[in-house]
């Protein structure tokens, strides 16, 4: 069964007819072609690569239906850079070599961006605890923690 939804994604309103069973992540990737949001597990909600922000809060977009975003605001990785300038978190990930294959990176950035708004002066323990929901199989997290710490300082 299809239903009509209106979702504001990265500041742009999208009106679409979608099946009720459509997952938010598939709406973003397949209907809006915003393929920066990834799926690294088999939609089990364990990898965190599909993390986006729903009304500013980090959520896994495979754990919601697209219809649940009706009338709401979604921010994806494509909305993080502003006016052609990378977000300080993105710059820090670049500078600290906080990614290798990059598959998990979009989800980590969307989670970390909200985390740093809530915790502008995080300890390393807090950063690590904040990353529990994001699996990275390349880096061993050390450079990710460094990058988040550095971005926090730049954002203050």
């Amino acid at each position: 069964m299809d239903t009509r939804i209106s979702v504001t994604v990265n500041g742009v309103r999208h009106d679409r007819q979608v099946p009720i069973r459509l997952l938010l992540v598939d709406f973003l990737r397949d209907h809006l072609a915003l393929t920066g949001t990834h799926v690294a597990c088999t939609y089990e909600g364990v990898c965190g690569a599909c993390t986006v922000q729903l009304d500013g809060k980090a959520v896994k977009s495979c754990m919601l239906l697209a219809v649940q975003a009706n009338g709401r605001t979604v921010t994806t990785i494509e909305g993080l850079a502003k006016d052609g300038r990378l977000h300080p978190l993105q710059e820090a990930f670049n500078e600290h070599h906080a990614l290798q294959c990059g598959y998990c990176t979009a989800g980590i950035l969307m989670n970390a961006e909200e985390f740093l708004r809530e915790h502008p002066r995080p300890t390393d323990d807090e950063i690590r605890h904040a990353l529990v929901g994001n699996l990275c199989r390349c880096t061993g997290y050390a450079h990710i923690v460094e990058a988040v710490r550095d971005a926090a300082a730049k954002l203050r």
Partner: protein
Amino acid sequence: MYPAPIDRYSAPATLGEALALLAGAGDDTLCIAGGMSLMQAIKARTVKPRHLIDLNGVAELAGVRAAPDGVSIGAMTRYTEIARAPELRGAYEALCDAAAHVGDRQVRNRGTLGGSLCWNYLAACSPPTCLALGASIELAAAGGRRSVAIDEFLGTPLETARRPDEVLVAVRLPPAPPRAGSAYKKWGLVTDALPVLGVAVFLQCDASGACTAARVGVGGLAAGPKRAAATEQALVGCRAADTERIAAAFAAGAAGLPLQSDIWATTEYRQLLFRDLGTQVVATAFARASGGQ
């Protein structure tokens, strides 16, 4: 994992609208709260609702409120908010402990207390914690409201006393008695994931610091969340410094619990976890009862 077809999606804005939608609905109608468990079941097609009633837009179901008659936690209050709720500090802080370590940030941003209690998964943290805190569960249907003690609300895993036409409205805690403290801790193979065992304790103390009443809730049991009656009795009279006596209270209580052996841990290992986690949460609860931590 992809959901089976869903025919109808409703997003009521008020509890009244939600209850009207539920009245007379069949087994294929389900309410969805945070969806952190239900969406998994829907994607795996172990649950195939034809009609989903989304409670996320019902503002009156969210929030923690303190009043002279106690603390009320709306069913749709998310873990993130519960973890930092000042109204729960001290006597009911076990709920903050549990909420702060459910899943991960993304799960805590979305998952709700009411959803967890209604799902009553055997390894969930909220059911044993609410059991230890002696919560009352407020349920509403189109025909009226009722309140059920948490001990009666929680059944065997995935079962509760909630009727299909009812919505869990709020978790109510009585006014905190003086010198009361609580704590929850879990142990699992993966950080903050569903635990092998979780223990919650609620203590009341007298002016000298001796325990006058205790409630102990245990999660991770194949039989569903349980209270450890023998431990509760043995904790009465203990003081924070009585570490051996407290450990003995948990060792004694372990014998009366259905601690299963499975691929995650043997019965003997669960007994050890019960004693070890138990002594830790009792120490924290004592400190909170005395105004510390």
